């Protein structure tokens, strides 16, 4: 298993990526420490719609944390495709079938690799959010960050859920067909968005979305949020395991048993 995981790590250019992430995280922490929100109050303050004062540095760095978390989802999505695609391109799967691995080891290695990647990205997101929040001025920017923090776990749970489906498709159907289904689904999603923009009153929908009211709602419903935080990873991991078992059943013919 270790060897297969390392192969996947190499195929996604892991070493370079880890160096990049570490440097990026260090730079972010350094910027945050050098420009704390509570030190540059007068020069960087802006007034929100409701008249409250917001620190711009905090908002910018808040956005960086958001973007980082969203980028992680894209990276995991890309890696799911890369680790399966590179094996298929290099015809490695039939090679591994000839190796004395235990049954399902190959499939398990893919699922474990993505799980490790999600764990690493989640941990890094936590470091980003903690560093960002520690030097933040009190006020709405901090409330937004806390809202981001509360949603991180459900967000990564969603990432795992999507990966479970993608890995299943890539391993069972192969890269070509899986990509076709994925692109088809994304096109359908894009068409739905276009339909809303063209034929629905989206401005009225957008008016209803107010980040501060969401923050207030989150403060009121702490029990529900805690329940969501507790259950979302548990349910998602069960689904992930289910997808792995289903994948093993569907790929039974492609694997050899050396037990």
């Amino acid at each position, binding site marked *: 298993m*270790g060897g297969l995981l390392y192969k996947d790590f190499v195929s996604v250019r892991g070493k370079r990526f880890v160096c990049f992430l570490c440097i990026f995280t260090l730079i972010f922490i350094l910027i945050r420490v050098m420009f704390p929100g509570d030190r540059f109050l007068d020069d960087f303050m802006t007034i929100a719609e409701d008249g409250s004062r917001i620190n711009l540095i905090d908002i910018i760095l808040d956005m960086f944390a958001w973007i980082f978390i969203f980028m992680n989802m894209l990276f995991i999505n890309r890696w799911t495709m890369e680790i399966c695609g590179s094996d298929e391109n290099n015809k490695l799967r039939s090679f591994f079938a000839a190796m004395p691995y235990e049954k399902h080891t190959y499939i398990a290695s893919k699922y474990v690799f993505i799980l490790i990647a999600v*764990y690493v990205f*989640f*941990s890094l997101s*936590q*470091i980003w959010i*903690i*560093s960002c*929040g*520690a*030097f*933040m001025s009190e006020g709405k920017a*901090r409330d937004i960050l806390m809202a981001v923090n509360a949603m991180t*776990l459900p967000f990564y749970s969603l990432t795992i859920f999507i990966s479970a489906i993608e890995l299943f498709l890539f391993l069972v159907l192969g890269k070509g067909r899986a990509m076709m289904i994925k692109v088809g689904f994304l096109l359908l999603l894009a068409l739905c968005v276009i339909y809303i923009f063209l034929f629905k009153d989206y401005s009225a929908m957008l008016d209803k979305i107010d980040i501060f009211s969401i923050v207030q709602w989150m403060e009121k419903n*702490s*029990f529900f949020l*805690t*329940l969501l*935080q*507790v259950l979302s*990873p*548990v349910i998602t991991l069960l689904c992930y395991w289910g997808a792995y078992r289903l994948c093993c059943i569907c790929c039974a013919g492609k694997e050899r048993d050396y037990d």
Partner: protein
Amino acid sequence: MTEDKKSELKRLIIYLAFSFGLAWIMFLVFIPEGKTWDELGQLKQSFIALGMLAPVIAHVITRLITKEGFAMTGEGSMMLGISFKNRKWIFYFLAILLPWIYTELGNAVKILLCPEIYDPKYYISLDIEKRLLLLLPIAGMVSGVIGSFAAFGEEGGWRGYMMPKLTKLFEGKPTGKLWAFIFGGVIWGLWHAPLTCIGHNFGTEYPGFPYLGILKMCIFCTLMGIILTFVTEKSGSVWPAAIMHAVNNTNPSILNGYIDYEKVSGLKGMLLPFAGRMIVMVLIIGILALVTGRKHNTGVKEKSHTM
């Protein structure tokens, strides 16, 4: 001292220098002068807690300097591999569940020792809903497992590097393992000293502050270290220890919402928050010692029968 032990000692000193240096620099730079742990606020506390990553960073740096390599599994490795074979999954299960058991039992012991601390409405003053209180241990276990990176930062260093080195250094003596645990616990406890001095873990309002706090931390770390080393050695991985440490740090207990320590003061007030968990931990260590001792004896007997 043999050459082998001398080189192990050198490696350990390098590791400790980096582990203490990196963490203490972070603690000293980012903790504002004159502020206590509670005055820092939750976000600043979390940032300072990132100093927990120092031991694992020190581990990596030490391996780079000493050229010990970065093997993931096996003897002399970083012990990062995960295996559930040969019933090793039990230690992962234990790592998740045990902190809840000893924290809850510890709280029950505290109430038995000092019934006046029990307040059935205390959770209201903490601004926690009753149904949320019931969810807290499970939330602690889930968040402990998923957010175990900070605890991994410590365990990757203490259990992944320091304890194997100490065990080797004290090898060959009848009480060698015990000395390794004591030294390991004291080192680990002293590492927390800057935080203990600003009131982390035990606060600032106790007699003998901060020296008795540091001593208490050393005792706690020794006991905790024994359990963590046990799960690390049995599973061959630092991950169960990291998970256990993380779940332990969330303090998972329903009874926390029913205990008001402010109702006791003086020496009783100082010892009580600490006593319950310690008593239960000593009991757990006793059970572990009995179980492992019995297994060892059975193994010896079986060997003598086959000879």
